[in-house]
């Protein structure tokens, strides 16, 4: 069902947790669908210095969350904003079709967190 990369990120998720002094937090998801993703950002000089996540959800939800944190770290806000859910899925060598819609929301959570950062810092 899942690619090796998905299973790798699922079983050894990177950057799990919260950032105490996060300056951007975003949460997306939906309880009936069974996926909630929360992203914590530490942005400095327009660059994402640290990202952490907490996710309630299936294998795809956890793996995409983990992957998006890896992809976001070190990027500028602008670069992070062009990251798409599809790019995350691709970086994981793809997701099962059924998972593309409901569990592939990690980039959305990242964008929410950036939005929150911008609101806080504008």
């Amino acid at each position, binding site marked *: 069902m899942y690619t090796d990369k998905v299973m790798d990120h699922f079983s050894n998720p990177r950057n799990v947790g919260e950032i105490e002094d996060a300056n951007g937090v975003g*949460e997306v998801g939906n*309880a*009936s*669908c*069974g996926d909630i993703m929360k992203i914590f950002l530490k942005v400095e000089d327009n660059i994402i210095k640290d990202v952490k996540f*907490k*996710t*309630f*959800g299936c294998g795809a939800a956890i793996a995409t969350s983990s992957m998006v944190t890896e992809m976001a770290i070190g990027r500028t806000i602008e670069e992070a904003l062009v990251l798409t859910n599809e790019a995350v899925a691709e970086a994981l060598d793809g997701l099962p079709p*059924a998972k593309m819609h409901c569990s592939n929301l990690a980039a959305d959570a990242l964008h929410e967190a950036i939005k929150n950062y911008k609101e806080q810092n504008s």
Partner: protein
Amino acid sequence: MKKIYMDNNATTPVKQEVLEAMLPFFREQFGNPSSVHWAGRMVSGAVEKAREQVAELINCSPAEIVFVSCGSEGDNFAIKGTADALKEKGNHIITTSVEHPAVLETCEYLEKNGYDVTYLKVDRDGMLDLEELENAITDKTILLSVMWANNETGNIFPIEEIGKIAKKYKVRFHTDAVQAVGKIPVDVQATNVDLAVISGHKIGAPKGVGALYIRRGTRMTRFMHGGHQERNRRAGTHNVAGIVGLGVASELAKQNMEKDYASVRKLRDKLENGIRELVPEIKLNGHPNPDLRLPNTLNVSFAYIEGESLLLNFDMKGIAASSGSACTSGSLEPSHVMGAMCVDVVLAHSSTRFSLGADNTEEDVDFILQELPPIVQRLREMSPLYNRDSISCDECRVIRRV
């Protein structure tokens, strides 16, 4: 890696004796039992013997058994066959909100075609209110369809009492006995059942074969139209090997049920009590009285975590179980059974079913009890819902709705 299979309500391996009985019917005895020549004659006796074995298991006459291709076909046949045969008499069907999709989706299809269906509610323990059931019967009611035991929770319904109500109001009574058969006694005569469905692969027979009990004299429209097989009740060349397998599995089930399920019950209870002791914030789904559940089934929700990720973690340890999570159901919603029991949607997503079988051992249970708590803990720590300023799950749901 050790493999522990605790998903016997989903499917079971074919038993060794069953497979051995089936093998000759693939090649040496490959005939079509409808043929008059040696190749046909060699196998028609085997089909009739299997019919007796199945009849024996549920206490009916062999002539009342029709072989079908699976449990789902049995349910489709029972319900659509009744709806069509009795359409002059009425258009009302009563079933429950916790049936298998083979019953529910068949009823929903009939609703689009002029039938009215009452879906009886269940309480938080997953049980029916028999008074409500009785009150739902109208003079248009042609069928009552209540499963013998629920596949997700293992809840056993009071089929004997429902049979009495059906008899009192002269309403035909169908029961999906797929999960009950082989695990607890199923006697279609004692319970006044008119139609009952069995599926082979749940009792150590192969996938792709099942049986429908049709009480003598029950008027049915065919579901599978075509040839004259099964005394004109079901078309299609007999799946001889599968039918032979179902027969032997039925015989074994009858012989071994008491012994096997006494020990399965012990293991299930041990698992149930162990989880209660070792893992906080869990919810048992189904009736709290273990006597009112199938002896092999335990369904439990682990707050704050989602079922599929739990299953995948189990799987990494070789443990096979199943979940009511949307992600594993093929739909976008979590289990309709959990929904009908008013289980919180987050808890529904984490509902996890362990369905044991005679092959499970004490060591299997010990292993699960050792592996489960840290897995749950790890996933909870990853969950944004856990430790959320001590918000209860009900409040979580409200928050998330925003």
